[in-house]
């Protein structure tokens, strides 16, 4: 005669289906609220209020003036450097020009700061072109490394909008 003890009986009886239901609900909740966002990076611009002397020594070099002209739709119409050279809407040419202006590129912390770039843009120029300009001027990618060109960028006074 087989003796079945009570504990044996109960151990096999515990129903887990409710817990699995709740667990699935939780999982579906997390899957629905999870959002995959693209990685974001920053361009750091240090801009103290104009008129204050920056650092102990005044900047001997004149900044490179970049004039960005926009068409009626806000797209880039012309890039003019130092009021002399015009690159149209070709950012690659702009980068090539900056590369030859910064001999050897500015790598790592160095005492001699590179040139400064001043951006003068039309009020209606779309922001993505401003970013493209800053990208072309700040550096370029060689494989996985980033070669930095210009470290200092500032904005000229905003041109008042027509409206």
């Amino acid at each position, binding site marked *: 005669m087989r003796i079945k003890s009570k504990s044996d009986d109960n151990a096999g009886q515990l129903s887990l289906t409710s817990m*699995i239901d709740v667990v699935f609900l939780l999982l579906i909740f997390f899957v629905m609220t999870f959002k995959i966002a693209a*990685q974001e990076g920053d361009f750091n611009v240090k*801009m*103290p*209020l104009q008129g204050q002397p920056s650092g102990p020594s005044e900047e001997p070099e004149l900044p490179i003036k970049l004039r960005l002209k*926009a068409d009626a739709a806000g797209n880039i119409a012309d890039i003019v450097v130092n009021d002399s050279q015009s690159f149209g809407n070709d950012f690659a040419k702009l980068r090539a020009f900056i590369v030859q202006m910064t001999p050897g590129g500015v790598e790592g912390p160095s005492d001699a700061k590179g040139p400064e770039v001043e951006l003068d843009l039309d009020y209606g*120029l779309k922001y993505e072109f401003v970013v493209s300009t800053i990208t072309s001027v700040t550096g370029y990618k060689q494989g996985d490394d980033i070669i930095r060109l210009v470290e200092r960028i500032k904005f000229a006074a*905003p041109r008042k909008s027509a409206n």
Partner: protein
Amino acid sequence: MARKKFSTKAAEGDMTPMIDMVFQLIAFFMVLINFSQDDQNAKITLPTSELAKPAEGAAEFPIVMHLDKDGTIYMGANTASVDSIRPLLSTEVAVLVSQSKAASDGNIIIRAHKDAPGGKIQDLINKCQELGFEKFALRVKEEEVK
């Protein structure tokens, strides 16, 4: 002696590994989920840049502002325009001062829509500079892998 036949349940495959996997998934999502809205705003499409690289460390004293293409600024739970952003910025300066810092220690992170007029960003930067902010970060997103 009548033998009572115990009814057996329909044979069910062992569910333990599946429940283990489900717990793993839940743990994964619980660790990664981020409910704070400060860093993201679905209305803003950031411009892309090939040089976009996440900053080495979190900026100290960050103040995140979202700028939509029509010039509306979203800051935390507040909405303002470039002209009416001053009170919100003054609040931020007050917060910094209460932590024994100055406005120049604050990092303004600007997340602007890619079609926003460049002049609006300049105006916004000028408004922040008027209150003493000096450090700005223009946020961009990585280019999609082609």
